[in-house]
Each structure stands twice: as C-alpha cells, then as structure tokens.
C-alpha cells in the first residue's frame, strides 16, 4: 500500500505527533505485526479510502468516520475501533485489503475497562470504575433518548420537534424526579412476576427411574433386571433371597429437577437480577418512582428464587442452548424462554453499547453542540435537521439526522454570522464541509460565514471519551488538538495556498462528574467536560454555550 495505515489514540492523531501523556498518538500498522495500544482511550484507524476492513473472527462491521480526505498523495479515511467488552476482545485481529494487497495485523488493547457482569446475584465481575462507566454510558444513552420522550401537557406546549424536547428536558427540567425510563426489565417486572413465581416455586420435575435395594414392603415395581438379580441371589424363597436385611432390588423413582428448562429458568433469574441491578443503579435518582420500585420488587423475587433453584442442585446451562419441547411448548416455560431470549438479546445490545461507547459519546456531543447554540440569546433559527432516535444503535449511532444538523443566524459583537452545524462523521458529507477537515476526525464542524464580508471559518468539535477510570487530562488533550490543528492548517496551506481560519473544541466525557475547562488563549482549541447527570446537565450546557460563543468570537476578532 502506498500510504501506511495507522492506529490513532485520539481522533486527530493523524495530524499530531507529540505523545499524549506518554502515549503515542499514532502507530503505523505493519503486516503480520502486533501493535499494543492503550485500550483505555479508544482507538481510530486511519487507512486508505478504497480499503476494506475485516475483523477476523468477529461479527463486527466496520464503522467509518467521515468522508475521504487527501493524505500524502493518497485518499485516506478514518474508521472507529471498538472497546473491549469481553476479555476475549482485548485482542483484535484486523485485515485491511486495498489495491489487491492485504495487511493483517493484531491490535492488543491493554488495560481496557471490561463490561461488568454478574456471575450470580451479588457477585459482580468488574471493578468500581467499570460499574461507574456502565452507569455513565446508560445515562448518556438516556439523555439521547430523551429526544423522543413524551412530555406532560404543561411542558409540551410549544414542543414540536426532538430538538425542542431535548431543549426542555436538558435545560428546563424540573428538579423533582420524573419517571424512570421504560426498559426491558421494567416490561418484565410488569408482565412476569406471577409467571416467575408460579414456575420457580413449582419447577417441573421429572422422575428418574433407578434400581435400588429397598425394603420388601417398599417395592412397588420390578423390571427384568430386578428379577434377574433376584434369581441370582442365594436362597430358595424370596424371603431367603432378601437376606438378613430383607431388602430386594426394586425400581425407585427419583425426582430430578436438573433439566434443561430449569437450568434456563435459573439463568433467566440470574440475568433478570443483573439487569435489574443495572437499571436500579442507573436510575438511582428516580428511586421513589413506580418503575424503580417495581423493578426492585421484581429483583427481590428473582433473587430469592434463584437461590432456591441453586440449592435444589440445578446447574447452569451450557451455551449454546437448543430449546427442548418443554421450553417451546409448555405454557409456563414458553413465556420464560421468550423472556430469556429477550434478556440475552439485551445483553448483546449492552455489549455493543459498551463496545461503541466512544461513538455514543460523540453522538451526544453533537446534539449538545446544537442545543447549546440554540440556547444563545443572539441566535435566530433558520433550519433544523429532523431528529429521530433509533430503537437500536445503527453502526454505533443512535440519532438519525441529516448532515446539516442545524443552521442559525448569530449576532455576535455586531457581526452577523451564518452558522451551519455539520455532522462530520457521516459518509455522505454536506457540501459545506471541506473534505480536508475529515482528517482531523471531528465529531462535528461548526461552519461560520460572515454575512457582510463573506469570510469563512470553521470550529472543529471533538467528542472525546476514554474508557478508563481516569480519563486523559483535558489540558493535555487540548494541547494535542492544538498541535493537530496547526499541522492541519499548515498542511492545507501548502496544498492549496489558502490560509484556513480554524479553531477547535474538545468535549470530553466525565463519568465522575468532575468539571474541567481548558481555555488558554494561546491554543487554537478549547476544552470542556460535559456532565450528563440530569441535575447538572443544564449548567453544563450553559457553560458549553458560553465556550462555543467564545470560540466563535475568536474566529472573528
């Protein structure tokens, strides 16, 4: 291949060189070589535009980020890499095919935070950091999904679009708790308690037939083998043959509970408890609401029955599970089986959510930029992309929008600016988005045009999310972004002879809810953190709006 594919530690890694907190911002990929990368911070591939990427041994699909851009005489593009959800995913084998050549490489993710799982109720595998991260990404998802929430009558006056709903819920939410979101576990808690109680309290038993020595008066059934045995016993009469203890071999029936359907029932209860705990943990602030209380009661029910079934010696099922007749046809177990499949699919979804949490954060950051700009007093709305939220993530994305996210007219310091907020991660770019900006790996680009002079500028926005208990310091990220911007400007200047007016904004996640700012004037980029907690998000967005205004102001001094 003409240009060497790279793995980047930060989205702008292709344009930066200085290591970031000792971390190489980019590493070249060699055929047959193994590359170790710090798994805490996510990774991005930079590769030739015409190449195909395959994750060997995985069902993952490639997740392109943005359109192609010119790079060292070739066209390159960026592609997101997943975070490890399971231990086995710490090693990722990648094949990159381009121009008839294949590059096979192995990426070793070091120190990733894996998705916490319950080995049994109360036995969580995963440290506190992972649990906090899990709660955090569920919060982020909940914030995004609020674009399709129904509001109460008073609040819904004047609310016509998803953007309006976000604006109301993020910026004008009342302090008192609303209702917790409806998830699968809530649906189960509503529908299934009676069924669970009925089935788990009286699990299906099969009678196993065994041949045992038993007292004569206890024998009810004999088979040929018992009679053969009897014949062989010494003695002439049955009494003699019974021996001093007067015992003969007969058929005993033993109850057996360790059947496939009961193992599935037990695993179903385990998963229900795990889901319930995640739900309750993620919705602590709705502690007194009906849904959370309902799920708590359901949790207690499932936990209790899980223990009972464990005590009865029912083992865990071994995947993959092929349902038997009882699971498919029995009136009680059929319901349990369907609910179990729903939980397994949900686990799959949560794994996917964990893997692509960086893109989740980027999704949120894009929406936040639009809502923040819309909050500015000096803005006039021109257009908004429709905002729909998928029920399932699509290539790591939950929001469904047009490349032009929003358009405003902004009055700033006696200037009138035309502001276009563009999604820079879609593979179909808006005409206003310069291709070269894609090499910076932006989440969004705020394209600005001075109404009077026609002068143009761009504000690159990055949504940066690290899958680590301790995220990278914001100031270091901003410094690195600054270097990348300067290098990109120089590169483009050399290529086209034009001077680019461009600045950046890094929006970093903060699972621990710590607020940070990086607004040194010397840098081309600013940085902020955004808290997604419903109680804090308003303030966070107001700060974001101010920072955006300031950043825009710097582009048009």
């Amino acid at each position, binding site marked *: 291949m003409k240009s060497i594919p790279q793995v980047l530690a930060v989205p702008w890694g292709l344009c930066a060189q200085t290591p970031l907190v000792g971390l190489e911002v980019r590493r070249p990929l060699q055929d047959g070589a193994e590359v170790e990368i710090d798994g805490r911070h996510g990774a991005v591939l930079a590769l030739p535009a015409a190449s195909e990427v395959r994750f060997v041994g995985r069902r993952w699909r490639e997740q392109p980020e943005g359109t192609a851009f010119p790079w060292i005489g070739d066209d390159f593009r960026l592609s997101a890499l997943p975070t490890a959800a399971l231990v086995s995913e710490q090693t990722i084998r990648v094949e990159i095919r381009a121009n008839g050549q294949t590059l096979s490489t192995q990426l070793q993710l070091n120190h990733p935070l894996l998705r916490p799982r319950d080995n049994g109720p109360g036995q969580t595998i995963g440290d506190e950091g992972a649990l906090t991260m899990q709660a955090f990404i569920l919060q982020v998802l909940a914030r995004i999904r609020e674009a399709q929430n129904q509001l109460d009558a008073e609040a819904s006056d004047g609310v*016509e*679009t*998803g953007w*309006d709903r976000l604006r109301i819920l993020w910026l004008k939410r009342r302090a008192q708790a609303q209702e917790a979101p409806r998830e699968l576990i809530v649906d189960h808690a509503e529908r299934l308690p009676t069924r669970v109680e009925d089935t788990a309290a009286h699990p299906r038993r099969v009678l196993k037939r065994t041949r045992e020595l038993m007292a004569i008066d206890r024998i009810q059934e004999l088979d040929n083998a018992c009679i053969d045995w009897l014949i062989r016993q010494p003695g002439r009469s049955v009494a003699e043959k019974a021996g001093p203890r007067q015992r003969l071999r007969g058929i005993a029936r033993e109850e057996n509970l360790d059947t496939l359907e009961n193992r599935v029932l037990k695993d179903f209860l385990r998963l229900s408890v795990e889901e319930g705990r995640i739900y309750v943990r993620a919705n602590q602030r709705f502690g007194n609401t009906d849904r959370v209380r309902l799920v708590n009661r359901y949790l207690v029910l499932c936990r209790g029955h899980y223990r009972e079934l464990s005590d009865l010696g029912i083992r865990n099922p071994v995947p993959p599970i092929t349902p038997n007749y009882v699971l498919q046809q029995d009136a009680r177990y059929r319901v349990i089986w369907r609910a179990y499949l729903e939980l397994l699919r949900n686990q799959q979804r949560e794994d996917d959510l964990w893997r692509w949490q960086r893109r989740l954060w980027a999704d949120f950051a894009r929406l936040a930029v639009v809502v923040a700009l819309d909050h500015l007093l000096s803005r*006039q*709305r*021109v*257009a*908004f*992309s*429709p905002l*729909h939220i998928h029920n399932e993530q699509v290539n790591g994305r939950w929001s*469904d*929008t*047009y490349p*032009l996210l929003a*358009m405003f*007219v902004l009055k700033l310091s006696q200037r*009138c600016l*035309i502001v276009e907020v563009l999604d820079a991660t879609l593979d179909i770019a808006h005409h206003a988005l310069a291709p070269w900006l894609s090499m910076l790996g932006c989440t969004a680009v705020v394209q600005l*045009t*001075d*109404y*009077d*002079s*026609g002068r143009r500028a761009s504000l690159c926005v990055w949504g940066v999310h690290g899958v680590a208990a301790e995220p990278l310091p914001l100031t270091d990220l901003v410094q690195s972004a600054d270097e990348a911007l300067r290098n990109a400007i120089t590169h483009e200047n050399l290529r086209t002879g034009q001077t680019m007016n461009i600045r950046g904004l890094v929006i970093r996640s903060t699972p621990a809810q710590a607020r940070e700012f990086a607004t040194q004037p010397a840098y081309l980029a600013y940085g902020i953190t955004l808290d997604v907690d419903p109680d804090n998000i308003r303030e966070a967005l107001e700060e974001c709006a101010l920072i955006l205004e300031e950043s825009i102001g710097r582009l048009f001094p």
Partner: protein
Amino acid sequence: MNTFIGVDLNGVLDTVAGLDQKPRHAPAPPVVVTDTPQGTLTGMEALLSPFGRPGLAANVGQRTSVLELLGALTGNDSEAPHQVGQHLHSLLSGNSRGGCVIAVPDIPTFNERARDRLLGGASQADVNARLLWRPVAALLGWGAMLSDAKIQALHGKRACVLQLLPEGIAVSELDVECVEQDGRPTLVPVRRRDGLRKIHAYSKTGLSNLLAAEMSITDVRQLWGSAWAWNALLGRDAKPDLFPDSHSPSGWCIVEGFSTLQGEVARAISATIDKILNEKRSVLQNASIILIEGPLADASIKPRLRNAVSLSKWLQLKLVDQIAPANLIVAPTTEGFVARGCAVCAERQSKGHITYYDFLPMLEINVLRGGEYNFALLIDKNDRVEGGKIYSNTLADQFFIAQETKSLVFYLLKEDEKNARRSETALSAENEVKISLHVTQIPAQGHARVEIRPDVRGALGNTPILLDWAAMTEIAWSREQILFELSIQGIGYPDTLPQRAHHLIWERTAILDTINQFNACPIRERQYDSMIRQQHSGTLGRIGTRSSPSILTKGIDQDQHIYTAVDSDGHLPEGVSQEIIEAFDTFREKLGNDFTVTNKIVGSHRRIEQLARLGATFYTSCPNSIIAYYRRVVVPGVISPKLVLYAGRVLSNEQDLVRLFRYCASRYHDAYQEGKNLSWYIIRAAGDALAYREHAGEILDPELGDSLADAMLYVLRSEVGKRNFRQNRFKVAVRLSAFLLRHRMHPKHRDFLHLKSPNKRNSQRAKELLELLQEASNSGVLNAELKDNIDQIREHILYRGTNSIIDITVEDDDTDNDGDE
C-alpha cells in the same frame, strides 16, 4: 377526559380544539415533506427541516404545502390524500385520533369525491374522522358561547357566514333554529338547498402567487420554507429569513418580512370584498346574523391610504358602513370558532343530538315502469336530513335479475353533477333473483352508498354489492339520451332469413333432367325458347322449384319449410351427388354463355328476360353476365321493371345493394308523386335483399332507409285500408317491415322506427307501423302463423323481440300486373 376534538383544516392556520381546551394552532404554514432520508415529515419538524428549501437541501425531499394538498384532493393526485392524512395525524394526539370532526369548505369544487379522498387519507393515517361544513362549524362554535336567552332569540333567523379563506372569501347563507336538547336550548344551523354557497377567489392565480408577487420573490418554494411570508397574513410580527443570494459575499441574503400587506394581496382582497358587497348586498341585508371568521381574519392589510387594520376589522367597518347589520360577529383566529364548533358537533353526535340540518343532492336511478324506462328518485331533494346522521331510503321499484345474468348496468343522475354516471356490476346469479336498491348517505361525508339487496339473503353472495362511485364511468349523456339507450337495449330486429336449399328438391323432382335437357340444347335449337320458358317458376320439376320435404315425402318428413334447389348464397345443398354438381356447373356456364350471346342479338328481349329469370334461380351464384344485366334493371327506365322482383336475390355486394335500394326508393317517390300504386315487386326485392344479406341493413343509408320505410308504409297502409290481408302485396309489405328493422344496425340510425326517436317523422313512422300491424293482427282473418309473425314484428319495433324466426311466405309470380307499369 373528553375526547371531542375539532379540526379547522384550511392549509394556512390549521387549528385543533377540544370543548374545554384552548385552541392550538399548527405551525404555519403547514407543510408535508416526503422522500427524505428520515421518511415523511410533518408539523414543525417538516417546516424547520432543510429539505426542499433553496440554498439548504433543495434537491432532497419534496416539500408540499397543505394548502396545495387540499386543492389536490379535487384532482387526481394519488398521493395527496395520504399526505393530508399524515398531516392530520401530526395535528392530533393519540386519543383524539380515535374520533374527530374536521371542517371542510362548503363550496362546489370541494365535492363528494374530494371529501371521500380526505376521509380515505385520514383513515390511512389511522385518524377516524367525520366531516362538517365549515360555515356550520363556525355557527356551532359561536353558538357554544351564547347564553340560552340569546339562542332562543335567534330561532328562525337567517345567518350569513363570511369566511376569509386562503382560496378566497366564501359567503354562505344558512338558517338558524333553536332546538331544546337535554333541557337546554341549542343552536342548530340549517343548511338550505337554495341557500347561497359561493366562494369569491382573490385572483385566478391563487393566494400563493399573489403573495409571491407581493414579496417580490420568483422562487415560490421560498414561501413554504418558513413563516416569513405568512406573518402578515396571520397578523403576526414580521420576522426576517435567510435566502441564498449568489450576488452577496456570503452567498446569503437576510430578507426582512412584512407585517402589513399593502401590495398585490391587499389590492386583490380589497377588490374581492367590494365585489361581495356589491353582488351579495341583498343576501347580507337579509341576514340577521353576519359572522366573519377564517384563518386570514387577523391579516394586517393597508388598503390604499388607510392605516393598517386587520382584515376582519376592515370588513366589519365596510359592512357597518354599507349594510348596518343587526348582529355582526367578528371572530379572531385565537377563538378557533370553527375547530370548537367541530368539537361541539362531535359531542352532540356522541349523544345522538341534532347538530344541524342539511339536505342531500337529489339522486336518480333508471328503472323500468309500465314497460317504459324512466328515472326514479333514490334521494328526494325535498328530504331534510339531520347532519351527521345516516339518511337511508329503499327504492320502491324492484328489479329482477334473470338467471345467468352476467352484469347489471345502472345510470345515476346526481343533482350537483353535470354528467351522469354509469355503473356496471358483475353478478353471478344462479337463479332468477328479485332485488331492491337501498341508498344511504351522511351529509358532508362523501358519496352516497347504493347497495343492491336481493330479496332472499345471500342470493347474490355473502358480500354486500355496492355501486362503487370510484369505478363508475362519467358519461356526457343527457337524461333523454340515457333513456333512449336503455330503450334500445333489447332485441330490435330479427335475424336474417336466408333461402335454404334441400337435397330432396334434387332427388324427388325432375330438376336434374331439366338441367340436363338444357345443357344438351344448343341456343339455336327451335325448342330452346319453349324449354326455358317458366323454368324459373316454383313449380315442381322446374329449375326454380320451391317445395317442402313434407310435400316431397308426402308427409313422411314433417319439415314444412319451403326450400329451393340453390340457397340464397348460391350454394347447392349438402348431400347432392357429384353428377348433380357437374350438371349444375355446366348449366351455370351454359346459361351465362347463352345469355351473353343472346344479349348481342337485337330483338331477343323475351329470351333475355327468360334467361335472366332463370339466372335468378342461382341467387348469388348467378352468371356474371346476368348479374350485370340485373345491374341495369335497377337503373330507372332502362329495362323491364318487372325483373326487379329478382334483383334482390341476385345482387349481393355493397354497391349493387345500394343501387337496388336507390332504385326502390326512386320508384316509390315516383309512385307517390303520381299518386299511383307502388309495385309489390319493389317491396319484395328490397325485402329479399334485407332478409338474405347480413350486412344489407347497415349498407342502407339513413335517407334510403327512411324512403324504404315510407315505401313499405305506403303499400301497407293501402292494403290494411282495403283489408287485403290475404294478398301477396300485404305479406310482402309486412315482410319488408320486419327486415327493414335491420337498418337499426346502422350506427347513425339506431333510432330508426323508434317511437321515442327525437326525429319526429321517424317516430311517426314507427307509430303508424305499429298501428297498421296492430290493426292487421286484430282483423281476425290472418292465419295463425302470419298473426304470430306480425306480433313478433311489433315486439321487435318496441325492442322486446325474441330470437325466433320471422318467416312470411310470399309468392314469386311476376305476371301480376300492379298497375304502375
């Protein structure tokens, strides 16, 4: 929680209101955006989206205004109903989609079809809707705010509703009644058949184009990108908007909006108001209540040099100035009278109360009464109907569907439609079924529903059979034309009756000997002439033998039909021997040659005529030389007119038949003018041609047909008058009257001899013919067969004929002197 929801759907300021809820306006202007990456968008999401907006995403998606979609409901756009339905869906919340009432304009263009399409579109979008006339809704909404005393005082008064709509200003006249319901007086509008319902358009080009002109924009799409162009029309503050501008440094241009209209729109509205005040002055003066409402009521206009004022206020000032009405109510858009009135209607309907009174357009359907086709009322125009309730009626007339009937054809005439409609319904009746027609309709809810109900349930299947309006064909026929078409649906003429040949004629008579004798006799022989004399006659043994198998077998064969040696198509009968065929062919050839030779000899007229008569026994296989001779026979004054008797047998192609008919007609005209008898040979010849030749009826042109009809009547009249019912002249005339009916096949003369023909002369002929035939039939001197034939002919004239054969036996004697030679 009440779910009585009303919708004012007008395309500019759509409003939704519940009974106790504040009216809620949809984003203005309402648009629907389709074909976007996110699917179809409605409401504010559609309005704010970049799709279909110049400079943003102009080529992505299709942005259509609801105003255009409402107009498209009257056309053929197949997507419009669905998109309107989606817009309605976005206006309403979940509960209210289960039942709402939508106001529709009460103007002729928004007809039943448009209302049907609107209901269909709403149903597709899971919105269960009923429709209500807009002026009725306005009065109901206003009435809901009145005190009981005030309502009672309005009983019997006349109201005029002036609706300021995007299409124009609509003027509607209604009456008002007070009806006690649930112990309280309620206002009940009455929509009268003769009440005024008219819309005065602002201009021919429409409001959108006027607005574009006022805003000086060339790209009409800019009107629908935001509320920028509509704020002034809605009485809102002006707001700027951003448009692409290739001439500006930034590529954009911020354009300030208008808060007041003072250009094209203001002038057009002002002119419309003046026109209404002029033309409808008497209506306005007669009205005790004038209600001004509409989505444009708050439009801020500045007509000429006046100050800016709202449109409703300005209209109010003009009315006060010129009409001084007793009760003038101006409804601002915030009140949502129409939407609220729809909610009131919904509530009353849920309780089974009277909402308003209405009428339905008269509907008629064709029936057969007393043997005559006519139109009967399915919906009587004098019936007053309760609004929202089902009007139903069953036609007193009943119909019979005969066994194996494949389809039923109905014609419907609707009062408010110019054209009639034709409906054809496929059926599968195994037995004869008696049916009745049942109609139901709800005012304002679309087309009437006409159901075919069998007397015996399930006789036509388990699914109700409805006359489907959408499948009906519009036909531009008048009532009379339809009745005429219906009257000619039956059998109006008999089948042809070719002359048939029979092998027994050859086997049981001496024809073959006669032919062989002729074949062996040279033309120069002395006995040639005596040999050919009278050979054409029908006497047994002669070449022209006419007999029946019954006679030839002395009663062993019961067949009494008269056969000849050669059929009228010139063919020998089946089953004759090869000897006969060869002798016949030789005979034919010799006859032709002999005729040709004889024709050259001067003074051999007698022989020529004999040979010509002999040639006629061949019918169409007559030798060509003799056919050529007969062509000269049918030219007036050329050859012996007696021979025309045989011309009808020999001549068969179109040109020859036309010559024959022209000759017959001219002979009649001559006889008529000279007051002489017309030879029955003429009548016979024409009758033969029409009876033997399938296409003769069509070849006859209308003028000739009429002439022949006159000729036939001329003879028939004379014979009936003399009561000569046994004479050949009479029979020949009757025979011609039967086969002359075949001229009805001519596409331009389908009303030939029709009693109800618009041509007076034609209908007189029919009448006279019927009378003459009736007189003959009643005479008591006819044999049974002839009487039966005459009765059949009468039925054919009345299009009630059957497929039975009309066979009237006539003689061939050409020695009979008719007196016109």
